[in-house]
């Protein structure tokens, strides 16, 4: 370029230290960097690792507002959340932030002309993250228990170019996209090597859970079994190993978030002490279980703490940071047990899977031949095994309630079935120009 052009072409510039959309992914290395950024969205805010598990555990049975918690937290505990709730807006927005970045990675990597095998793997990993987020959004805000419902979620498959609103998809359409993404991930994602990254195995594990929610029980059982039988992962020797190993040398975790003492000193353990405590119900259930000591700790002043996320150490430095187990193998046994029972009526397989978990945790084995009893035992086992972790027991309550197995009001007083899902954040409904309908009952 001539000097004079340098002097006068002042507006022909790109921003420094930030890359424009059309240049962010032009090769595989850049696609990998954008993929790391998308993964980073899992941990950049507390939405995925702290708030979502905490509010669902409060909606369910195992957590309650902590000492610093107030009305905002309590409304989840009483299953009476208003559409202007702070956490709603935060979680909803953060999940769409990840989806938007995943969409950048997917759409821009797909069109790269390269023979590099990482190309499909990167797309697959991004699709896994998109499926995970869409599934979480659907469980919280969509009528996931009713495939015929039009109240799915807003599905974003392209990066946003403006703030124009878009209508919600149906529940079926939502499931279809989630499953489509997971099938792609199963086919193209790398085989399992690391708990921090999406793998074909993680996609199978998540798919089994999605199918369970979709009531496609036989297929859910089949794919859960594939994961269980995979040689990549096995149960930890003891229940407490899961929470003492956390992220180092784990055998059981399938997909979880990392933490460290420099860039990712998240504050999960502190939040679980101050804002989100464990519920009295959970403590009372655990008191007669062999997992009690591993799951619950007491401070010197006698208050109970969630011992699953209490102390972590990284490179010798004690931190209040902690991980989130999106999927660990223990849950797969219980998914398998329920799915194989509901889908194939296979009591023996179900009981074996359930007792696998009880055996590992040194609890007495269950011996029953009654399908309903075993179904209930699986639900209870999920409270005991997975309680105060990711709120899985809340969705179990909703699913069992909708299947007619239980009346949810036996466990939580719910004013109406419309409270089984959350209201959409008011801001998005108000600004949608009538395109986004609020959930019924809100």
């Amino acid at each position, binding site marked *: 370029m001539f000097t004079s052009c340098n002097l006068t072409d002042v507006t022909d510039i790109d921003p420094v230290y930030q890359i424009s959309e059309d240049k962010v992914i032009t090769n595989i290395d850049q696609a990998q960097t954008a993929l*790391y950024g998308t993964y980073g969205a899992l941990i*950049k805010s507390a939405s995925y690792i702290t708030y979502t598990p905490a509010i669902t555990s409060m909606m369910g049975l195992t957590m309650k507002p902590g000492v610093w918690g107030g009305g905002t937290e309590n409304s989840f505990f009483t299953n009476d959340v208003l559409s202007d709730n702070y956490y709603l807006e935060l979680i909803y927005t953060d999940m769409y932030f990840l989806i938007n970045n995943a969409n950048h990675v997917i759409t821009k990597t797909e069109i790269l002309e390269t023979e590099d095998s990482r190309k499909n793997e990167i797309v697959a990993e991004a699709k896994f993250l998109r499926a995970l987020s869409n599934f979480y959004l659907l469980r919280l805000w969509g009528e996931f228990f009713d495939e015929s419902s039009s109240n799915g979620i807003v599905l974003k498959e392209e990066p946003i170019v403006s703030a124009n609103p878009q209508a919600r998809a149906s529940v079926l359409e939502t499931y279809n996209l989630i499953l489509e993404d997971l099938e792609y991930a199963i086919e193209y994602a790398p085989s399992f090597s690391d708990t921090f990254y999406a793998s074909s195995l993680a996609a199978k594990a998540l798919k089994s859970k999605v199918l369970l929610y979709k009531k496609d029980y036989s297929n859910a059982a089949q794919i859960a079994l594939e994961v269980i039988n995979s040689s990549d992962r096995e149960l930890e020797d003891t229940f407490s190993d899961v929470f003492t190993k956390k992220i180092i040398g784990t055998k059981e975790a399938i997909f979880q978030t990392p933490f460290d003492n420099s860039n990712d000193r998240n504050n999960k353990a502190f939040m679980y002490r101050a804002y989100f405590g464990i519920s009295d119900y959970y403590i009372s259930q655990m008191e007669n279980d062999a997992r009690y000591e591993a799951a619950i700790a007491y401070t010197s002043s006698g208050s109970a703490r969630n011992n699953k996320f209490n102390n972590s150490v990284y490179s010798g430095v004690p931190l209040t940071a902690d991980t989130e187990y999106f999927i660990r193998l223990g849950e797969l046994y219980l998914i398998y047990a329920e799915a194989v029972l509901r889908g194939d009526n296979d009591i023996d397989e179900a009981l074996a899977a359930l007792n696998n978990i009880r055996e590992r945790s040194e609890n007495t084995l269950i011996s029953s031949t009654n399908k309903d009893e075993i179904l209930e035992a699986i639900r209870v086992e999920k409270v005991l095994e997975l309680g105060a972790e990711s709120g899985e027991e809340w969705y179990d309550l909703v699913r069992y309630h909708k299947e007619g197995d239980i009346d949810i009001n036996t466990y939580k007083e719910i004013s109406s079935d419309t409270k089984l899902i959350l209201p959409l954040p008011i801001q998005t409904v108000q600004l949608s120009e009538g395109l986004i309908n609020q959930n019924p009952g809100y």
Partner: protein
Amino acid sequence: MNLMRTFILLFCSTVFSFTSGNLLSQNAKITIDSDKTISVDEVFEIIKSQTDYTFLYQENLFENLPKVKVERGVIKTNTLLKMSLPAGVFDFEFTSSNSIIIKQIIAIDEATTIGEQQTITGVVTDGNNIPLFGVTVLVNQNERGTSTDMDGKYSIEAKEGDVLSFSYVGFTNQEFTLTASQTTINVVLKESAAALEEVVLIGYGSQKRKDITGSVTKVDLKELKKLNSSSIDNALVGRASGVYVVTSSGAPGSSASIRVRGITSIFGNNEPLYVIDGVPIEIGQGLGNSYYSQNSSSTLSPLSSINPQDIESIDILKDASATAIYGSRGANGVVIITTKKGSYSSVPSISLSTRGSVSRFTKEYSMLNADQFHNIVKTAYENAGSDLPEDDQLYPYGSDVNTNWQDETAQDAFDTNYYLNANGGSINGGSLYSLSASINDQKGAIYSTSFKRNNVRTKLETKLSENFRVGTNFNYSDTNNKGSNTTFYYQTIKYRPDVPIYDEEGNFGADTGGVQSNPYARVRYPSYVDSKNLMISLFGEYKLMQGLMFKSTYSYSTATNKSFRYTPSHDVFELRNNRKGTLNQSDSQFSSRILDNTLTYNKSFDKHDFNSVLGVSYTQNKSEFSSIKATDFPDDNVMVTPGAASNLSLSSGGTISGLSSYFLRANYNFDDRYYVTFTGRADNSTKFGPNNRRGYFPSGALAWRISRENFLKDIEFINDIKLRTSYGKTGSANFSDFQYATFFSSGSFYNNNNGVVSNTIPNPDIKWETTNQLDIAVDYSLLDRRINGSLGYFHKKTTDQILYRDVILETGGRSQYSNIGDFQNKGFEFQVGVEIFSNEKFQWTTELNLTTIKSKVLKLNGGYYNNLIEGESMSYFSGYKVAGIFQTQAEIDALNAASPEGVYQSSNTAPGDFMFVDVNDDGFIGDDDNDIIGNAEPDFFGGWNNIFRFGNFEVSTLFNFSVGNYLYNNNKKDLLIFNNYSSNYSTGILNAWTSENTNTNIPRLVASDPNNNRRDSDFFIEDASFFKLKNINIAYKFNPKLLEKLFIQRASVSLSASNVFVITKYTGLDPEVNYGGASNFNQGYDSASYPPVSTISLGLNLNL
């Protein structure tokens, strides 16, 4: 009227900028467009307009000559002149420098021709001892001539008996007859009229004041310099109507906030655009207000790099007609600053000045001593019904310790300045130079606070050929500032008086419950900002043809700032966090390069006068920063550098933006009577998306010199009246770059991999904020030009104001910038200067300016920011209203009983607490009872300057005032209302309410403030109207004759005092503060972080 004649006077700047390389012969052709009869003066005008010639002649030379008849056609210059000037009476010659010198032929006195030619030198000054530049000096009326240089000096050959005459526009002519021994003649010219011919700088050019159609205020620089301010922004206080200047604090090196006709932008910066020697400088780098206020503690304003003594002129452009040439950056007004330039004199003019000052706080708070402090703590705990704190809490170092922290952290605030300047050039105007160097060393009133600046500057220009001129500017300064952004004073006074400086072991004493080390220790923590500024430019100017000039300027400016703040390991907070020292270090660099190309064209014929400028300008700005937080150092003194720390965290970034622009200004006037101006600029900015990159900013102005119309011509007391109006559009794009599209940036870490994520919710429609401004004004000059001034009205409406707008959350974000708000500022500006006395012995001139402004949020259109409300101003305070103090329990019980909540304001309210007003009448005090309780905007403000001269003395007094503005006196909250025993209170708290002391407005002493008396209320909002003697300056000029032996041409001493007294009802230390000056929404907030100081200075100026 003799206005028309003045063009013939020699103006150096005109001559040298417009001199042609192609010397016109005396046979140059002049075209006469029609047959007519014209005066000799008009002949000259025709010649001047069609050729390069300028004229040198005595002003009244042709007053009584007969008119000349000319015929349509072409005529030689030579012939035309011969026709016009009666032969034998006048002679004329063409000189090599394109001047035509016209001489009156007088009878030759034999005796005088015998005398020997010698060089006569001297200095021409005005009555104020200020050198006059460009005074025409003629020998024997027309024999030969020269003009004075920048320092008023001249040098000319003459002999005994010759008559030297001195003439200058706006001044009365003077003549001297040389005696045998005289070689030096110093002349003092008296002002004859308002300086209508004064040249005013406007964007990319200049204009005579009388021809200005827009609102431009020329700041009187010699008055401004009397304020002895280290930075130009603080010195503008009270100098110009429409310009609201508030000093942020009394710390050395602190900046001022300047608002020209109000706030126009929410996210943008509202400081005016500064154009320093042609280089536009945006405060806060044009990146918006949040960037500016976040960085104001780690960087120094680029204005602080300029030594006010180097400045030659300041012109403030206010209306749309004047500012539109700066297009998208003009909405907040433009301040044009030029530094000193060389002069046409072979003898260098060297000036040396030095100044020393001493400062002290204008007022200090009187704080409780340890005994008084302990007494009120005890009372407050008793009143609260709680147990007294344990003895080790109440008397951490025993009951005998009493420390006056104000005294322990004070230092003698001396300020010393040295300034050296040399100006000169070749006598033929070929080359000019100006060099200067200066040192400022200022200490603040608090220990370790200081401002130091070293500055060197040169300006050189030379003629490469007759038509081609080149020049360069260079300005470098390095500045070190300690403590301008600290809250030292505030932290100091509040520190507990019962803590010693050192404990028994020799460690620093500290409040055991507090998180801060004691003030004596704190002021010793290393903390400074280092700033280096460089501005260079190179220009070339080529005359293409008569009246047509091309100029190209390349400029580069760069500023680096390093901020260093170290908290040593013994700091209380460090100890508590198990850290061994924390260093916050940030480095930032900003650079701007600009290429300006302009084409100027001037043409005058008959009564028509046309001038225009057409230009293109390219600007590119870049900034980078990195900041390091380092902790755990091996020691506190030597190895305090990031590399020595055990733990480091680093952040960095930067941005870039480009602006390419085309602009045009065309002025036309007929007969100095009717004026039309059109100005426009098209800007192309990278801040906006492809659809909105271009912004067009047109403006137009009309003026009518009504005093030249027949119906006013004969009214004697009217000298000049000009009506003018302008309307136009300017813009603002002063916020962060690249909001229009999705961009990715790093910092999304995952498992120690640094990934990129999208960082914006793109708004492809984002565009300029637009300000449309109407200006209507009258400029007047009355009573023999002894009264001059102007009165104007302005109305500024800003549309497409950028605010946050909520967006649907499926975008992954909550809000985005959007152009949605409409704001308005309107007001009046009034300025008058009066020459009250003017005789030989005593002169008194006075100048008053006054401005009213009302701002209003017109529409928010669903956007929001901060506390903006439609229909209100932009800077109001909200809070509760205090109705008074409860005197009895019965009053409280009655209100509680009537409340639907059972409680009126707090269940612990007791007599002695504030009673708040139930604004919404719902029976209790809730959030809804917050109301508007004051406004930081003044009703009117201004300045009043007086100059008295008698003998060799000159006294100037500057008063400034502001009426109707409110301040949030945050100090009252902490110093007068008890909260706990972790901080000290002022002695005013001794007057707190008790059942015996009921006639007070200070609530009772009670621990933990159960009634929340400290909530935001109108108790803290005070009327801060004031009238202040801002500065008084007494100057004495030494008699030049006494100085001659010392080889000094001129010398003067001056004594000045600033912030001398203030009349106000405000109870804080000083009503003239603005601690949050950098923030658009923190105006009018007084936290006494570093109170204003009053300063007494003694200065000496020498001219060698």
